[in-house]
């Protein structure tokens, strides 16, 4: 009984159930093969997950993860530098402001010419989306640190490196996590697009390939997998934030 109540109150369960019902209603209403029923899709999903679909999903997750890690590696130092040095800020910010709103997906052909047709161009495309979010979030995060904190660590006798590790870096960590959360949606969409080109691996390829083969059940299993992947990455960011920023 208790378990049942808990399930009822769980918001993600409520959300999933509602979507399943809506899906089923659509399936009945449209009544064609374009929208297969949830049940057969889920069965196909689990069946495919023991085989090829798992590989497609994993290669997509890998591309996004590498892009996130590289974006942080580039964006955090640049953002810190811009936040702490007026000169760096006045030099880099104008460039960042112009590049930031441009839809990066338009550069995919260029990236494929420059970085090859394989993984690199796809990863760099996603990186070019996330990295600006991180640079600007870190820069603003540094600028928002109250002066009193700098005073208080100065009076405690911390050196430059200790000020970075005890004050500046922890102050911007939560900002980095929100920047990631904001950019992940766009990243997945862009990844989906880029995986239509020059690859036979990735969830984008899988879905479009099923479409071409007119296998709507498998296509929907792919869409389901991609939605789950998005949720999984979101939850992973939440989880990481709880682990590394326990004070917020």
């Amino acid at each position, binding site marked *: 009984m208790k378990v049942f109540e808990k399930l009822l109150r769980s918001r993600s369960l409520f959300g999933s159930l509602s979507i399943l019902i809506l899906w089923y209603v659509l399936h009945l209403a449209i009544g064609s093969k374009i929208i297969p029923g949830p049940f057969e899709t889920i069965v196909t999903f689990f069946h495919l997950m023991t085989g090829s679909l798992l590989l497609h999903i994993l290669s997509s997750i890998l591309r996004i993860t590498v892009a996130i890690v590289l974006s942080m590696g580039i964006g955090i130092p640049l953002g810190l530098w811009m936040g702490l040095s007026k000169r760096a800020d006045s030099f880099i910010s104008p460039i960042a402001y112009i590049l930031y709103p441009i839809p990066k997906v338009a550069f995919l052909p260029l990236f494929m010419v420059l970085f090859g047709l394989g993984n690199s161009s796809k990863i760099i495309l996603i990186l070019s989306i996330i990295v600006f979010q991180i640079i600007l979030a870190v820069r603003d995060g540094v600028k928002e640190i109250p002066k009193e904190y700098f005073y208080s660590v100065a009076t405690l006798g911390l050196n430059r490196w200790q000020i970075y590790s*005890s004050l500046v870096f922890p102050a911007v960590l939560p900002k980095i996590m929100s920047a990631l959360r904001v950019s992940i949606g766009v990243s997945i969409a862009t990844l989906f697009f880029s995986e239509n080109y020059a690859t036979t691996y990735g969830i984008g390829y899988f879905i479009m390939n099923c479409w071409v083969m007119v296998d709507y059940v498998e296509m929907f299993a792919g869409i389901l997998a991609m939605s789950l992947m998005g949720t999984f990455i979101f939850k992973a960011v939440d989880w990481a934030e709880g682990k590394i920023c326990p004070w917020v």
Partner: protein
Amino acid sequence: MIRIRDLGVKYGNETALENIDLDIPKNKTCAIIGPSGCGKTTLLYTMAGLIVPSSGKVLINGEELKSTRKETGVILQNGGLLPWKTAWDNVALGLKARGMDKAEINGKVSAILEELGILEHRDKYPNQISGGQRQRVSIARTLVLEPDLLLMDEASSSLDAINREHIQNLILKLYMKNPATMVMVTHSIEEAVFLGQTIVIMERAAIKHIIENPYFGDEDIRTKPEYYNICLEVRKWLSKELSKEEEDK
């Protein structure tokens, strides 16, 4: 111990302090009081070496102050505790920066947290403890470094009346046990008289008057009439300041 000569501080072209002369002898306490915006925090930060004066100088033990000093402890207006560090890590921060070994840090930090009655909150973050407890943590963080000069900016002003008296009693007790030179900025007349051997009354950017307080050090002073006489005197000087400002307008 502190010698301030002809000190001037400017923010841009706004003068925050002008022609300040002040001497504070070793192991004495000095309370600075004055209207909001008169330059108390600026004066304290200059003594801490956080603000570079635009003219004149601050000498500490005969040496001109150029930057912060390891032996000066500062408690800022809002405590300045780092939100991402637990009470324990906040207190240990300065010791770690000095490269002390772990066992020694553990001993010192637990001793001071115990003394200030906050050991049970050691693993909590600043936003998980009360204002009074937070203030104790910032006092612990400063005292654990055993400063010979302690500068405090409104150490109790964010607290309610009862907690404020607790903190004031605590500061007096700690001072009696381990005297150090102490300068505190306050906007409470009662606090200035309770904790200051010398009471410096400021007006805009300058020192208006200095009162010696012979009753300092008596924990029960708050119940005695002499205490109120000094409070009245301070109040008189502060309101003279006010009436003068009104004349200026």
